[in-house]
């Protein structure tokens, strides 16, 4: 696997982390004990996840000519 392939794996894992964080914090927020901080962190996580996905598509387009092996 080339650096490109690993970068793809990494980007996927990172977006999963961000999305996971977002879901987890938002669920916390909608519980009776929810705090504003939870909402903020959840939204930030969501934005990060979206940003990472956008970046991933950009980098794949940019490195189209490079192989995965």
């Amino acid at each position, binding site marked *: *696997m*080339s*650096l*490109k392939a*690993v*970068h793809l*794996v*990494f980007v996927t*894992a*990172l977006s999963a*982390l961000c999305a*996971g*964080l977002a879901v*987890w914090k938002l669920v916390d927020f909608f519980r009776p004990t929810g*705090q504003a*901080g939870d909402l903020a*962190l959840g939204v930030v996580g969501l934005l990060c996840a979206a940003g*990472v996905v956008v*970046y991933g598509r950009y*980098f794949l387009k*940019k*490195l189209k000519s*490079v192989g995965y*092996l």
Partner: protein
Amino acid sequence: MDIPYTVQPRPDTGVYNAKVGMWLFLASEVMLFGGLFSAYILLRVAAPEGTWPHGWLSIPLGTLNTLILALSAVTVLLAWAACKARMFDRYKFFQGITLLLGVIFLGIKGYEYHDKLTHYTVVLKDGRIADGHWVSATPSEVVLKGEFVAERSELADRRGRAKAHEEIRLARDQVQKMQVYGPAYNTYLALYFTMTGLHGLHVLGGLVVFAFLWGPGSRLWKTDPDRFTNRVEVAGLFWHFVDLVWIFLFPVLYLT
């Protein structure tokens, strides 16, 4: 005597030697950290109800470090792409940024360690427990910034708790036991220091390699740019692994 496939890939396997070597090495690294994470799971599952610490680490700092490492993964990729496009100056720029980001990561990590290693729990002879950061000490007295608690278990979950700032003065002859928040404090901190310590050593190793490839090692560019590009790629593979490990460490230690 020349060893074949050090630069060009072998046609039937499609890769050059160093890449195979790095992948094998990373496979063993996966097993190394796999062992650590299994230890984490086993010890955490076995911990008695309500004793596992929560919220002991600063989530903002952890998030910042996560972002820094993620960014450094991007710059490593860009540095490699620059080599492929034969743009050496661009390579130098991005590799330099990677180096810088790595150093900042270690700096923040060092600050977090420092914060833990100046934090104490003091059990007094009258049974009260003081917990806080070290301010100063004389032969007769210890001064902490923190709070008193009645039970140790109150310290376990610190999520959403405001930091206590009152100054506490403790007479030395009242102190029964004074424990620093180091690896010996409890299983959680033992895991925290061991796992992030081992990860930190990997970061340091990666930075040494990057520094070499940025500085003296980059002379190879003039004589054999293909080989140099391979080196950048292999170092990048290692760096991505280190970053991936952090992506697992961060939720496991900071968030849950």
